[in-house]
């Protein structure tokens, strides 16, 4: 049985808790996680799928397969890429409802709330919004079928 979004978030928080207050190790870990992100095909890394930010860019490519949303994603900065990896782990291959009903708390709990805070047009923060928007669109699409 697939893990719930809550289970996955708690696992992530648990993994990061090993670093306690050591921000540098946290960031190293994120950069390592980012390396595990599957390579995004070049044809999807274009203007149509870019989520721009002042500090870093994110590419997000969605598909719906058997009622589940499939995400491909990438970023041009390593730390953001690590966060993108975690978010894809959480929301890849989920129904639109699962995505929309997620209370996203892990980002703050792993000490990365600045990435979704008031920092002006952060690619990652916009990506979260974008993923939810795709979920809304696919939910409507699935309903109308």
């Amino acid at each position, binding site marked *: 049985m697939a893990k719930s979004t809550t289970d996955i978030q708690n696992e992530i928080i648990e993994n990061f808790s090993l670093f306690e207050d050591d*921000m540098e190790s946290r960031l190293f870990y994120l*950069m390592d996680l980012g390396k595990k992100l599957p390579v995004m095909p070049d044809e999807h890394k274009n203007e149509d799928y870019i989520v721009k930010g002042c500090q*870093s860019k994110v590419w997000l490519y969605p598909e719906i397969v058997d009622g589940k949303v499939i995400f491909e994603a990438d970023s041009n*900065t*390593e*730390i953001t890429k690590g966060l993108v990896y975690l978010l894809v782990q959480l929301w890849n291959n989920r129904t639109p409802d699962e995505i929309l009903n997620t209370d996203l708390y892990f980002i703050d709990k792993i000490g990365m709330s600045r990435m979704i805070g008031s920092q002006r047009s952060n690619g990652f923060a916009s990506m979260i919004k974008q993923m939810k928007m795709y979920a809304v669109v696919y939910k409507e699409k699935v309903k109308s079928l």
Partner: protein
Amino acid sequence: MAKLNIESIRKQFPVLHQNVNGKPLIYFDNAATTQKPLSVINAIRDFYEHDNSNIHRGVHTLAERATSAFEATRKTVQQFINSKESEEIIFTKGTTDSINLVAQTFGKANLKAGDEVIISAMEHHSNIVPWQMICEEKGAILKVIPINDAGDLLMDDPIAIGFEKLLSPKTKIVSVVYVSNALGTINPIKNIIEKAHAVGAKVLIDAAQAVSHLDIDVQQLDCDFLAFSAHKLYGPTGVGVLYGKRELLESMPPYQGGGEMIKEVTFAKTTWNDIPYKFEAGTPNIADVVAFKFAIDFVNEIGKNEIRNYENELLKYFVGANSIRQLTEKVSNVKGEFDSPILFIGNAKEKVAVQSFVINGMHHFDVGMMLDAKGIAVRTGHHCTQPLMQYFGIEGTVRASFAVYNTKEEIDVFVEALERLVNLKMR
């Protein structure tokens, strides 16, 4: 080493004495904004605790005290930049506001279709966009002084179209930065002003990054306008200065309408107040203007020369550090591509204590985050100079900018952190 008592100076800045991510804060983002000494912080508090009132028209005692304190800053600024009269000092919201004011009043009144405005390739967006806007409105043409790889303006280049070749009788305004925020370059503005005047153009100098490092004498420079911000000079945010020659300010239409800038208002006609008030509509940021004087006093007490010499020593200490010299190249062969672990961007002969750089294979965002994890605050990104970044073929840099309260010990920690990042990359 300078005879400054840095420890005693640092004690005046409470914000410096804190930890970030468990490490002592190392604040190297002074070109973005400087920290404020206790005298400035206390002045704001004292004003609201004892003297707060609206200014210029009150009859009561508090109004008189507030007005006096406000105008005392104007006088201090006048002396600081040696303008002939204090009426030539206008308080604005900042450098951006000052430049917009000139573009929208002097520019609006004097530019016609086909006229030319000259700026440079290293300008901050605040000295690009206002001119783009007014040129589009008026049908005027914006010309750009090119730069070289070291980060110097091309003045009289034999091949390229440098500043001298750009000037013509069509040039009405030249607006250039004195010191580049991204590169640290000190531009030859006296030369620029002379050449511009020779063709009948007026000159605005963006002195935002210059005021805390260089002596400014507007009469000696003979610039027509000069703009800067208090917050780059150990003063509060939300306060800026526009200096303008009296005859120009008097000839310009007002910028914003409202209270203070009028003499008489009727529905048939309204007449304008004299300068500087003509350009100071509404209630200003009184407390912060009052506190600004204390920032200038702070600088004057230490001495700008002493500050500059000390900062330059810090810069030399950083770029001259053994490991930094070994890791760094100063010129890229192909724009945006280079072999060394670190590339310095901005290597003009005349510079202030600002150094931009990129680490090979590491995005500036990641560098900034990793340095912040060690308590080190630098700025990353395009620094509001996107055209300049495009020239170098990069998206952005990491920028360290030093001030009088920074230390060699802080630079040691910074150098070690950079070495660590480079080693991480090489793995």
